């Protein structure tokens, strides 16, 4: 392998590292909310734009996570999970359509 070839490989390696690292640095997280005994736990979570909110329904009845601003309406069958990616900064209030006293909030930052 010549010096030029080595440099080329170095460039490829750097480019690859860039491609792999950049998203890794901005890696979106998954924030889990348990749904148990008709309660979102925790009721309040914070997230960054691009993060995923995942609800795990431990109850034997179906629920929903429905945003007050109608930005999402996630069905949560008994024993199942559902998720949404938050795309805008701000506070999103949500509730269960079937049991409206079940309430939660997501504080989304840039």
């Amino acid at each position, binding site marked *: 392998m010549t010096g030029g070839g080595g440099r080329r490989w170095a460039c490829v390696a750097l480019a690859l590292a860039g491609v792999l690292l950049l998203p890794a640095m901005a890696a979106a997280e998954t924030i889990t909310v348990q749904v148990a*005994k*008709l309660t979102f736990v925790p009721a309040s979570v914070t997230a960054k734009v691009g993060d995923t909110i995942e609800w795990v329904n431990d*109850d*034997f*009845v*179906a629920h929903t996570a429905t945003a007050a601003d109608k930005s999402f309406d996630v069905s949560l069958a*008994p024993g199942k999970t559902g998720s949404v990616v938050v795309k805008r900064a701000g506070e999103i209030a949500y509730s*269960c*359509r*079937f*049991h*409206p*006293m*079940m309430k939660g909030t997501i504080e989304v930052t840039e």
Partner: protein
Amino acid sequence: MKALRRLSVALAGLMLTTGLSLAADAAKPTDPQIAHIAYTADNIDIAAAKLALETSKNKAVQDFAKDMVRDHEAVNKQALALAAKLKIKPEDNPTSEALLKQADATRAHLATLKGAAFDKAYADNEVAYHHAVNTALETTLIPAAQNAELKDLLTTGLKIFKGHEEHARMVAGELK
């Protein structure tokens, strides 16, 4: 048994029945009786929801009725599984009989209604019925339950039905 008496009084008023004998005045209910009352109360609401599904053309009412069938069937499934596990044989009792008698009267009344009048009467009845059942659960049935798992299921049931009561209030409010 004050709550059960109130439950019956509330239902009686609602369902325009008179001369109701309230049997729940007896001693506090046993676990087999509580299981029977809970199961009966569930089935009454499922039957009412099925009538609404056949009768109503209102989307909010239809959606609510579907929620009632789904949730109450889920609760019943849990209740029957728990009864089998604990070897509790649900036992018929005067409170269950009174509930059924009143439910028949309500059903007969609702069956005479159509359109918006039916929707309003059904939604109002759902508010009152869930409120009465929730009060009975909270003040009589849950405190009287002896088995911890039965008490726990009734407590979860109460939370579910409180959700229904609030949901019913929202639906009834929109119909005004």
